[in-house]
């Protein structure tokens, strides 16, 4: 708890709020631009259309955002050569855990705020049908779960390499692969960590080639995908933590 509190203390003046505000602004502008281009027929899908596209935007925006947050948190230690000071007062394992917990809380706050913002947008726009509170909650949880899996990967890289270019290039590649993977065969999507933003979407689209009609429908993420997501997360966490703990400073 003490270490976690210190993580927030250390991130003073690191413009973390600005990074989160930028993520929200980009998603808002992106979605705003998308909805203004939709006709009345499309808009009747309201909440489903919103959540479907939000998952797509997440796949593009969040990998880089998560990489940036992990990098902001880890870079300050490399920059000030603080590992050799910190590790005389705390174990490397607890330092790793504190950084991961910091990321979990920041991402949770960001994604809850994001969901609240888009719920408000939907209500103001008067989307048809009942407000899907439960599905919005689940969507937030899924976004957070996938982001945490990606965060574990990014934190591992940011801790391993003092030069943050490696971690940020991975984040940029993730953003690219995240959206591209939606075109991959289903088995292959599951091999792309950033592809889980789309894979775990609560809304699926069915486009009928004959009638040329698009239909959206609710679905629950398959248990196997949840298990695979947890597996990816566990692998990134164990490998990242082991490499960090074993590293001599």
């Amino acid at each position, binding site marked *: 708890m003490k270490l976690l509190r210190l993580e927030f203390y*250390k991130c003073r003046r690191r413009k973390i709020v600005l990074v989160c505000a930028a993520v929200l602004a980009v998603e808002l502008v992106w979605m705003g631009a998308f909805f203004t281009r939709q006709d009345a027929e499309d808009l009747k899908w309201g909440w489903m259309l919103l959540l479907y596209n939000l998952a797509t935007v997440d796949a593009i925006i969040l990998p880089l955002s998560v990489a940036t947050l992990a990098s902001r948190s880890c870079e300050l230690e490399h920059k000030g050569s603080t590992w050799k000071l910190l590790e005389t007062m705390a174990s490397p394992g607890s330092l790793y855990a504190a950084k991961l917990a910091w990321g979990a809380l920041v991402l949770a706050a960001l994604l809850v705020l994001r969901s609240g913002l888009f719920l408000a947008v939907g209500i103001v726009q008067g989307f048809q049908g009942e407000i899907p509170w439960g599905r919005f909650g689940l969507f937030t949880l899924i976004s957070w779960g996938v982001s945490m899996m990606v965060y574990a990967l990014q934190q591992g890289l940011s801790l391993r390499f003092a030069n943050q270019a490696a971690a940020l290039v991975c984040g940029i590649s993730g953003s690219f692969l995240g959206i591209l993977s939606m075109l991959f065969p289903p088995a292959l999507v599951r091999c792309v960590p950033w592809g889980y933003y789309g894979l775990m979407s609560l809304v699926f689209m069915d486009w009928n080639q004959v009638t040329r009609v698009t239909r959206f429908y609710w679905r629950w993420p398959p248990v196997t995908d949840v298990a695979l997501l947890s597996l990816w997360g566990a692998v990134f966490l164990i490998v990242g933590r082991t490499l960090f703990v074993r590293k001599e400073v």
Partner: protein
Amino acid sequence: MNIIETYDLCKQYGNALRVAHLDLSVPEGSVYGFLGPNGAGKSTTLKMILGLVRPTAGSIRVLGKGVDRKNRLSVLRQVGSLIESPSYYGHLTGEENLRIVQTLRGVPEKNIREVLQIVRLDGQRGKKVAHYSLGMKQRLGLAAALLGYPKLLILDEPTNGLDPAGIQEMRELICDLPGRFGMTVVVSSHLLSEIDQMADHVAIIREGELVFQDTLEALHGRSRHHLALRTTNNAVARNLLMEKSVPCQEEEGYLILPILSDEIAAQLTRFLADNRLGVVRLEERQKSLEDIFLELTGKAASL
């Protein structure tokens, strides 16, 4: 009592043994100078004592307790350290940096003000550390090490990169600590003159091996006096001196003799003159600490 003891301490990187079978004994209350040329293994040794680097072999006792992975942090609660360059968060102020260490060490908040005063940084406590000079950063590092008033302070090259005034200031601070706070200070350096001015005990390592460990007095004791004699014919003079059972050896045009009393020296010069040899130089010399360091490490005193 020894506050640090290492037994057969080794560290191997690849095929190179960077620290080889080191047996250090640091007496409590001393300023222990850890001397060696760059790359001799000083930082690696200090990091092993702090548990930042895992030894390949050997054992370490700090404050009378064997240090292992389990008890490392509890032992280190009474140890302050400043290893290589200072550790700091540039975007935070000096005081904020110390607050992080204070929270982690669980020591009273008032210690922050006190250590800032000790290192004479109290006037700069609200300034971001990124805007500090190197000397100020080094003093902040020392303040962080002092924060819990530890029994043992490990300082690795604390004067590196400082200007002469900064070096003098840091030296005064370090020399002050055992008397003022009862701390034992281990300070490493590659500068013999620096250790000579600060330490009362010295260890010298060369390529990871301990080549000397004793009091500074004992090191000075090695710098024995001798006489250097130059005559019109050193070869003949040498034979004559050998006849008189005076040990001597020739070095760079001089005959090196042990210190002789005035009476014997006078007899000797008369004896050489009686044998038609002119004494052109008779000097009393002392082997400098630099010479001893060079002998022990095979390198110049400051490399």
